[in-house]
């Protein structure tokens, strides 16, 4: 007789506990990556502005990976939250005029995150009403609406001239944004790092496992009692908040916001980056952002007129021949090196 109240064997239970602990464990390449990223600020201080861009792009891509890679929502309008976050942080820094709480950068990040989470939560109900194609259109439509609003509300956003007079204060009241961008980079990277740890924790939580389940098989996920839409509302909200923080970082570290933050190409680029790096891996977003920026720079320097051609070609080849993007390659090599399966 099968007894649903039975207990596991001692051996089985400890094997299971060890299995779960092992799954979420930090691996050495992860430490290497983060130490390396922080070291860059001191090894190549002259390139700090570029690194800062990469860190912001990585956070933006991370936010889309939560939405696309884990919640399985294909969004063509994720840039809307990036832009909103940028405007919120920009307007706060402008209102504070370089001093006090309003200009405090970390306060700006917090408010941008909360604001974008709120907008993300509301719009998630629209997005989740339809299937894949509808979602694509709804996300795109929402982003276009916000872009046009930013354009029309020139009294607030500065319209096509951009938002002038963005004056972020000292970070935590201690560190000033310097001309070379080293503090900016360290600030963006630290934010990325902290939010990455949070994302990693969430993905390894029961909530995160249920997201993977929904993406893997929504029918079965419902049949085990998962309220699929509510979980997706949550993931979309989290992704929106993260994108808002990325936008806020851009506004603060460049002390400027223009309509460009709302442009469609941002949504397209970030999707490219996530696919390029590897969907649903978290690290793919970071590696993808770095690779994208490096490739962009190299190709733009080598063939200023045809760089998009080469970027497109590389993307097509990668998608066709390497399953799982760059992270697919990396985990393949890592598993061959260690003989172990399943990196985080």
């Amino acid at each position, binding site marked *: 007789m*099968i007894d649903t109240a039975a207990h*596991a*064997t001692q051996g089985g239970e400890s*094997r299971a506990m060890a*299995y779960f602990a092992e799954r979420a464990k930090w691996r050495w390449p992860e430490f290497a990556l983060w130490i390396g990223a922080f070291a860059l600020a001191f090894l190549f201080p002259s390139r700090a502005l570029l690194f800062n861009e990469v860190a912001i792009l990585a956070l933006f891509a991370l936010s889309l990976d939560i939405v696309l890679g884990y919640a399985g929502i294909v969004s063509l309008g994720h840039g809307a939250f990036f832009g909103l976050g940028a405007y919120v942080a920009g307007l706060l820094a402008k209102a504070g005029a370089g001093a006090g709480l309003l200009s405090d950068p970390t306060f700006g990040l917090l408010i941008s995150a909360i604001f974008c989470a709120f907008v993300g939560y509301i719009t998630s109900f629209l997005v989740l009403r339809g299937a894949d194609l509808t979602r694509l259109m709804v996300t795109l439509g929402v982003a276009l609406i916000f872009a046009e609003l930013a354009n029309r509300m020139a009294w607030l956003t500065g319209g096509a001239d951009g938002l002038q007079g963005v004056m972020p204060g000292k970070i935590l009241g201690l560190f000033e944004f310097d001309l070379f961008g080293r503090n900016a980079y360290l600030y963006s990277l630290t934010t990325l790092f902290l939010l990455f740890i949070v994302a990693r924790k969430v993905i390894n939580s029961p909530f995160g496992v249920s997201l993977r389940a929904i993406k893997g098989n929504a029918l079965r996920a419902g049949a085990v009692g998962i309220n*699929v839409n509510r979980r997706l509302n949550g993931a979309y909200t989290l992704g929106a908040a993260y994108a808002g923080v990325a936008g806020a970082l851009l506004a603060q570290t460049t002390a400027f916001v223009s309509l460009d933050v709302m442009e469609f190409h941002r949504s397209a680029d970030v999707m490219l980056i996530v696919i390029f790096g590897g969907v649903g891996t978290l690290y793919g977003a970071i590696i993808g952002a770095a690779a994208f920026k490096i490739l962009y720079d190299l190709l733009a320097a080598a063939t200023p007129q045809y760089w998009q051609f080469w970027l497109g070609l590389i993307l097509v080849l990668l998608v066709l021949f390497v399953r799982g993007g760059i992270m697919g390659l990396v985990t393949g090599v890592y598993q061959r090196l260690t003989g172990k399966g399943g990196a985080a």
Partner: protein
Amino acid sequence: MSQASNSVLATKNLVRRFGGLVATNDVTFSLPAGARHALIGPNGAGKTTFVNLLSGVLPPTSGQVFLDGQDVSAWPVFKRARAGLSRTFQINQLFADFTPLETIGLALSEAHSEGAQFWRRAGTSRAVVDEAVAILEQLDLGDVMEHRVGSLPYGKQRLLEIAIAVAPKPKVLLLDEPAAGVPEGEREQILEIVEALPKEMALVLIEHDMDLVFRFAKTISVLVQGALFVEGPASEVARDPRVRQVYLGESEVEHHLDTPPPGGAGHGHAGEAGRGGAA
């Protein structure tokens, strides 16, 4: 069967149309607690549609579904699952990238209402892990619990399909052809496990295989063209001339009348086999 007060699952005048086709035609049905019920019928009789209506995968065109006396007709799948209605699918619905351990852990997290917790690592709830391993060990999945589901042999995947439905301790379990596609050699194990399921769980078996139906079921409903054709104790249904005519081959029914099903001979054996396999 009348709609008695002890029924865990019932339907009233349930209808489902697909365009002009009536897939479920005015079905009123009731299942008592701990039932061992089989739902049979020729191909295209609407068995799977009926199961989809019961579990909420499809909304009914009209009529009602009751779970524990409560009208759940408008409830989505997940809500019915939480209220104690589990099912397996004719075609495996599993998470290929999960391990059996994660799969059952997921199902149990939901059953314990811990599935939305985002602040702690999965696998730190001792009760969930303990229960998950216990059920995997009993269903002979203990030794493969850390393997990727997609790479398991089909028979093991079929066992997992049952395990994921059983783990949350449902009141009602709908088994949609549990042994479908399983090679002959592994079939017996599935049958033994189905027979060994807890007595208090009401089971509905949808099956083509008459050997399995008569071995397992105490009561049978025959569905023909979406409507309940005959219903009653297994022996009566087998003797019913209309059923013979519409559905069963004469010789097969006579065979089952001559040799009544053995009463739970496989029970203890399945349990022992499960534990033995995990040791």
